[in-house]
């Protein structure tokens, strides 16, 4: 399988009041094309921080302090991927919601209470599919103009059409310029001579200064009544939003789109959040514990929805959960994280049938089984404080197989079997 996204030795710190929380301690994971990849672990182990680092939306006081995050989205990137940590924020905003999307745990607070559902879902279209929207609206207007007799209406529509066409032209120019700049930056990425560095800096500066719209359009948007011309686009967007909601199984999508988040049930809100994430057909969908706050029946619905979407629209999913049952049901591959480290990575089958890392073994053992009559199994000890984490392997204070070396140095990641890696000294001798 081909890699889609990869993190290499990712380190993320949080500079809090009480000290520096070393949340990620060299996390290396990768998601393959077309698979559902699971990230498992307890609360606080760093799963959320990892994916937020991937999208570079880590909240302050957090900061990514080391490592690489490589994307292999385009054909041209196959060989070495784009390290998005070297990219500008403009690049990231164009990517978020378009190539990578994320859905969150608490749907009710994830939606803006004072904006309508239709607006919030449509916002993605406005950000990333503006050209398409413009084109459609222009085509619609052309048809209407030939049919309109009334002079004022015709004039207004003609004005709208010309403004939209202008915007479309500027947008296309902008995008092609961005593309050429990005291409050249990618080609020059690993070159270190002064001339290349200077060229790269120049390109970056130029890229940041490109504008999506030109002065005339911005001016018109400020004029009190003229600015209403853009309302026409909202209609096109709304139609697409309704279609999207319908395809996600939302009944009566027109009414829902006109309404507000607080009118919906928890399950429905989560569907809306999913709709927002899917609006622009992302290449990768990241789901951060999307079902943890829902009751079991709704949970099942959402999981089914994601599974069916996987077969149709989304190609790859990164699923975060602390529920091992869900992992077994939904994921193809999974990584187990503990206190900022990746303990083990394997296909779900291998993970459940042959867990290597003592932590994984402990986790699987502690899942209660129906026949169990005596005390529940637990992993002794407590989750460590990440400001002063344990030295070496962060699990060693609680590990039944801890050795001397475990406290001294962080264990390397060993490939025990094809596709099955583990970070534990128990397996280093065999190699």
């Amino acid at each position, binding site marked *: 399988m081909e890699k889609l996204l990869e993190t290499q030795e990712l380190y993320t710190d949080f500079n809090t009041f009480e000290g520096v929380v070393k949340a990620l301690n060299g996390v290396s994971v990768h998601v393959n094309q077309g698979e559902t990849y699971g990230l498992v672990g307890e609360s606080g182990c760093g799963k959320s921080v990892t994916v937020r680092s991937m*999208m570079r*939306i880590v*909240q302050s006081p957090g900061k990514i302090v080391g490592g690489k995050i490589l994307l292999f989205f385009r054909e041209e990137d196959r060989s070495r991927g784009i390290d998005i940590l070297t990219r500008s924020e403009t690049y990231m*905003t*164009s*990517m*978020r*919601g*378009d190539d990578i*999307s*994320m859905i*969150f745990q*608490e749907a009710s*607070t*994830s*939606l*803006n*209470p*004072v*904006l309508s559902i239709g607006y919030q879902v449509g*916002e*993605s279209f406005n*950000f*990333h599919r503006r050209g398409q929207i413009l084109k459609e609206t222009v085509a619609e207007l052309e048809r209407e103009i030939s049919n309109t007799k009334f002079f004022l209406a015709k004039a207004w529509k003609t004005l709208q059409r010309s403004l939209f066409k202008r915007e479309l032209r500027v947008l296309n120019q902008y995008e092609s310029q961005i593309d050429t700049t990005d291409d050249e930056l990618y080609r020059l990425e690993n070159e270190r001579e002064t001339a290349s560095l200077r060229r790269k800096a120049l390109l970056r500066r130029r890229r940041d200064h490109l504008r999506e719209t030109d002065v005339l359009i911005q001016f018109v948007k400020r004029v009190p009544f003229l600015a209403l011309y853009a309302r026409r686009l909202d209609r096109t967007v709304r139609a697409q939003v309704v279609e999207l909601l319908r395809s996600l199984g939302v009944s009566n999508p027109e009414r829902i789109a006109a*309404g*507000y988040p*607080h*009118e919906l049930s928890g399950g429905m809100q989560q569907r809306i*959040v999913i709709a*927002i*994430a899917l609006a622009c057909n992302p290449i990768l969908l990241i789901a951060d514990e999307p079902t943890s706050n829902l009751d079991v029946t709704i949970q099942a619905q959402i999981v089914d929805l994601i599974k069916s979407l996987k077969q149709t629209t989304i190609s790859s999913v990164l699923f975060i959960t602390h529920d091992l049952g869900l992992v077994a049901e939904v994921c193809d591959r999974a990584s187990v994280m503990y206190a900022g480290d990746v303990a083990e990575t394997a296909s779900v089958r291998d993970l459940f049938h042959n867990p290597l890392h003592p932590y994984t073994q402990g986790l699987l053992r502690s899942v209660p089984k129906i026949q169990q009559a005596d005390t529940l199994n637990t992993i002794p000890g407590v989750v460590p404080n990440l400001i002063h984490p344990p030295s070496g392997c962060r699990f060693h204070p609680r590990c039944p197989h801890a050795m001397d070396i475990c406290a001294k140095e962080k264990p390397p990641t060993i490939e025990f079997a094809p596709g099955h890696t583990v970070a534990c000294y128990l397996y280093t001798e065999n190699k």
Partner: protein
Amino acid sequence: MSLFNYILRRLLFMVLVLFGVSILVFGVLMLIPPGMRVAAYVTSEKIPPNQIEAMIEAYGLNDPAPVQYFRWLGNIFRGDFGFSATAEAPVVQGFKTYFPTTLELVLFSAPLVILVGIWFGTAGAVNKDKPVDHGIRLFAIIGYSLPTFWLGLLLLMFFYGYLGIFPPGTLSNEGKDVIFSPEWNRITGLLTIDGILNWRWEIVWDALYHLMLPTINLIILSSALIMRLMRSSMLEAMGQDYIRTALAKGADRKTLYYLHARRNAMLPVITISGILLAGMLAGMVITETIFTRKGIGWWMARAALQLDVPAIMFNVLFLGIVFVVINLIVDLVYAAIDPRIRLG
């Protein structure tokens, strides 16, 4: 509950509070010795001492409190508020004379105060911890600390005393001649509006010119409150989850702040705008005294010094009612705007 029920409940509550206010005001009234209160019923000069007792008895000022209360309340509902010595007219008449001046200043400066506050408050939040932010916070805290009367006096001293512009008062002497001449139609009592209606534009500019300084004064003093609230409200909104969702959608900084955050941040500011308005009205006592604008605040200040009881009581009651009504309106506006309340 539906919007209708909500409005109904608030209205009933308002009536209750108004009654409470009237009792409170009456309580204060009763603290004043009858000798002073009897002056309210006399339109001419001083009463000879031997007649005071007789008059007190005649007007029932020695009756038990509840009796006097209901009598007083009855008078109020009939529109009889007594006679004001300072206005040299019945209180209601005095109100009609003085209120438009106050209204004009409030209507002119309140929107500016709010806009300035919102603008700077947002700027402070967007540029958090940068020099701009610190400057805005400093300005806000200074504005909040300044005694209302002091700033006005300083402004007068500088602009009017030193530079010679923005004089106090409501109109220049020439303007006053026009106002008191027979051709002038006093329609609303607000000089700017009346100036337009009478098509005497020089009055309009004159009035605006005299409005400048009090407005500047009020802006400096009152926008501080809105600034601080807007800033903290924006910061709180920015910490919410929906900002994270919008960020993950690909929203740029501007959209995040000025659309997603600001709309949510505005709600508390709208609430406080009402309170601000009411507070401005109350503060008119000082502002009008300093800038010699003959509005109800000025009237109240004089009445207090000259122990003009009816005028004092009326103004207190009036302001109390205005406060309560404004609070109700603010609650209703809030309900209309916040979709969560509007749709139950």
